[in-house]
């Protein structure tokens, strides 16, 4: 066989002249220095294996961290005061002894190979949400409330992902809850309804975040859990409200969750630019120890400018702060049909919001509140506001 034939054959297999010389050099090294060549090969193999292993781990970790952190960042950006926690995958040392493992006191999750990433992602997401999403508030809630909150939150994250991810989630979590814990699924359905009008994150999660930051001198889990149940019912009624219906309550005065929704959409007042009745009403609201007021209206430029003017004047005159503004999509009932709308929300918060609940404060404000109806009638029916000066909620 001539050299030219060998070169032609190598070219046939895609090995050109430089490759031929490299192959020749390797063969020469293998024959001339067999021991050194073997050692070098071993080092290269080990390095390659390590690089491959590290690469696979890194790829799995980056895949999970990227998706989860992106979601949490988006969710946290809509909630004032929420800490945008992020997940980091830490690979356990396989040589960890039992004593070290006990001292570390941590759950270790078995991650499948890179080819089976979807299930890894679903499991990591559920574990992360269970621990890092509203951790303080969830300690005050019931098992049903906690589970429903995590399940719905995970569903909103995974619904954005395509295909098998959602299937794994439905198989491993959703279906199981649906079959065995109907109360959890009822609550998840309520969250879905609240989310439909766009108030799941900006109002419900916001209120839970606020409750989580409160400090109690005694165990108040039962009261908080009851409060959250009535808050959910209150928001569900709001979500089912038809435009123009003034019988639906817009104020929730619980023991610890005290909030009000104020709809600003009346065309006549907007045209006149008459903000005074609204500012008067906001004063009334905060006098009733409401902590958070959510101004809601259509996101049309003239309306949100009017809403901004009301908020600016109210914050100038009253001990309140504007903590957030946001546009959000929602679906409201207009003459019995769900209609997609773009809404605008301004969150006003009392500067006198209570963080520490001692015995004296509870005796003065909380215990009387428990005796009252938790969900007050619509503020439009409030006798303390003259009919002429009452803002309308005919959004």
């Amino acid at each position, binding site marked *: 066989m001539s050299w030219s034939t060998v070169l032609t054959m190598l070219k046939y297999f895609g090995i050109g002249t430089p490759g031929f010389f490299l192959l020749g050099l390797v063969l020469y090294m293998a024959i001339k220095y067999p021991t050194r060549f073997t050692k070098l090969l071993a080092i290269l193999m080990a390095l390659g294996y390590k690089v491959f292993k590290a690469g696979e781990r890194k790829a799995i970790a980056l895949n999970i961290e990227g998706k989860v952190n992106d979601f949490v960042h988006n969710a946290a950006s809509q909630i004032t005061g929420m800490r945008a*926690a992020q997940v980091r995958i830490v690979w356990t040392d396989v040589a960890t002894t*039992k004593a070290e493992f006990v001292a570390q006191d*941590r759950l270790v999750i078995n991650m499948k190979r890179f080819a089976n990433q979807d299930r890894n992602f679903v499991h990591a997401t559920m574990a*992360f949400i269970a621990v890092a999403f509203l951790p303080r508030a969830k300690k005050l809630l019931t098992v049903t409330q906690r*589970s429903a909150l995590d399940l719905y939150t995970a569903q909103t994250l995974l619904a954005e992902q395509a295909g098998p991810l959602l299937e794994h989630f439905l198989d491993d979590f959703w279906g199981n809850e649906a079959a065995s814990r109907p109360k959890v699924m009822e609550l998840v359905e309520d969250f879905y309804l609240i989310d439909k009008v766009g108030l799941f994150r900006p109002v419900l999660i916001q209120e839970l975040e606020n409750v989580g930051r409160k400090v109690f001198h005694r165990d108040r889990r039962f009261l908080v859990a009851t409060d959250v149940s009535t808050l959910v019912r209150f928001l569900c009624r709001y979500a089912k409200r038809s435009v123009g219906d003034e019988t639906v309550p817009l104020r929730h005065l619980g023991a610890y969750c005290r909030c009000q929704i104020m709809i600003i959409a009346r065309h006549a007042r907007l045209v006149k630019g008459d903000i005074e009745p609204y500012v008067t009403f906001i004063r009334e609201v905060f006098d009733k120890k409401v902590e958070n007021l959510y101004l809601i209206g259509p996101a049309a430029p003239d309306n949100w400018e009017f809403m901004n003017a009301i908020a600016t004047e109210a914050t100038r005159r009253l001990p309140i702060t504007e903590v957030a503004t946001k546009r959000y999509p929602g679906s409201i009932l207009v003459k019995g049909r769900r209609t997609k709308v773009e809404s605008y929300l301004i969150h006003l918060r009392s500067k006198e919001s209570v963080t520490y609940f001692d015995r004296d404060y509870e005796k003065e404000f909380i215990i009387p509140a428990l005796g009252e109806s938790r969900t007050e009638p619509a503020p439009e029916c409030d006798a303390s506001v003259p009919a002429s000066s009452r803002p309308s909620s005919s959004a």
Partner: protein
Amino acid sequence: MEHRETTELSAVLEKDLEQALDALGVLEPLRAGQACCRFCRQTATLANLFGYYPDVEGVALVCDSPTCIRTLMDLLRTGDVKL
């Protein structure tokens, strides 16, 4: 710069699982079919292991049945099991 709190999630890659469990002394019982899931008490295997955590009885193994994963998540929420 925005401060973001980090939650670390300990993990073991499937192919390293035997080595990690061996170091903890639970690989042999697992292979012999003598190890069971802490929650459902069904036999735990390398194929169906979701994860493991330390508890009073030593190393608690959790299988990947949806009910057991859900129970584990409940314990994570209450802080009885830590990430």
